[in-house]
């Protein structure tokens, strides 16, 4: 499945979800297909922490639906995150593992044990129950609504098997924000949606 087309298919089915992206390719692809500068937090180069960040937000704001993207390069650095996610079992969190079988953010450098890693199997072994895999854009378009529209009893883990970025795609623009600007754009959006007070003052 083409990485960017997969993200286009998911973005088309977005209905107000708050998005957290991970290092490199997922930030580039999500920025390309959405140009979202308020309801997406591009947690660049976080080295495996995008879903932990998303879990904190999901815990704090249970009425928001949170989508968190993470490459399998980041996942390999910290697979134990799934133990924490399973323990928290937040029904408003969906963890997308974007499996391109490479460290996409560093020019598709090789991943360890790449041919044998069964990410869905690892998730099930840690007790996750809502585990799904998509290998084609058609499948995303056909089955994704049922997966995300369900009244989920716990958090959802979705493996997206995609092709690595091509050499040309690697040149795709990174989200251009300085960190504090992104924090405020995103945070003010969360405040407007929920009425919460993140920064201690309102403009």
């Amino acid at each position, binding site marked *: 499945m083409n990485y960017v087309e997969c993200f286009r298919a998911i973005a088309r089915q977005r209905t107000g979800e708050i998005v*957290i992206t991970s290092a490199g390719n997922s930030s580039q692809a999500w920025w390309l297909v959405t140009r979202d500068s308020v309801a997406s*937090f591009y*947690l*660049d*180069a*976080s*080295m*495996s*922490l*995008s*879903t*932990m*960040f*998303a*879990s*904190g*937000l*999901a*815990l*704090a*704001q249970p009425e*928001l639906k949170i989508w968190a993207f993470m490459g399998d390069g980041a996942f390999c650095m*910290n697979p*134990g*995150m799934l*133990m*924490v996610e399973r*323990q*928290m079992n937040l029904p408003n969190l969906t963890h997308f593992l974007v499996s391109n079988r490479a460290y996409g953010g560093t020019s598709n450098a090789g991943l360890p044990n790449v041919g044998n890693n069964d990410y869905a199997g690892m998730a099930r072994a840690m007790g996750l129950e809502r585990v799904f895999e998509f290998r084609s854009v058609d499948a995303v378009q056909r089955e994704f609504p049922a997966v995300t529209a369900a009244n989920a009893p716990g958090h959802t883990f979705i493996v997206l098997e995609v092709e690595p970025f091509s050499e040309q795609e690697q040149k795709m623009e990174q989200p251009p924000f300085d*960190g*504090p600007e*992104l*924090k405020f754009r*995103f*945070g003010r959006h*969360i*405040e407007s949606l*929920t009425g*919460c*007070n*993140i920064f*201690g003052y309102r403009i």
Partner: protein
Amino acid sequence: MTEKTSSTAARIADELASCGVKLVASLPDNWVMDVIDTIERDDRFVHVPVNREESAIGLCSGAYMGAMGSAALMGASGFMTVVYALTKINYTYEIPLFLMATLRGMAGDHHKHHVSNGLYLLPLLDAIKMPYQIIDKPQDVALISRCYRHTRTYVRPMVVLFTRDLLRGGH
């Protein structure tokens, strides 16, 4: 848990609650087990034991973006592993974060495997310009609130460091 360490743990919990801390993410160190047990049993908190210290940084940073007060609790060794997460997330985006860690490797800590923490923890904090407050006596636990508020002013992380005398009693 002795009466003295139980009392200290309760004071720490009360101080955290008074700051509006709801989420506490922790990894153990023998010195903070009483604090972890106290927080785990306290309905004022959501306690999340995490798989590694970096996960606590991610969790608490996300909670901040949802307006939930939080604290990350860990040992000195665990703290030494989180420098990248702190500098990448909390310094880059200027996201406040309150941490509590043990001050290991000082006189009175007889564990040789903490010698490196004694040598490098404080110089490391200085190197990344991260403010810290050493808390050595039960009456100084109230400094937690001041330090927590400072993270909101400074919009970056700050750590309070608990000594052995505070957590285990001095001798």
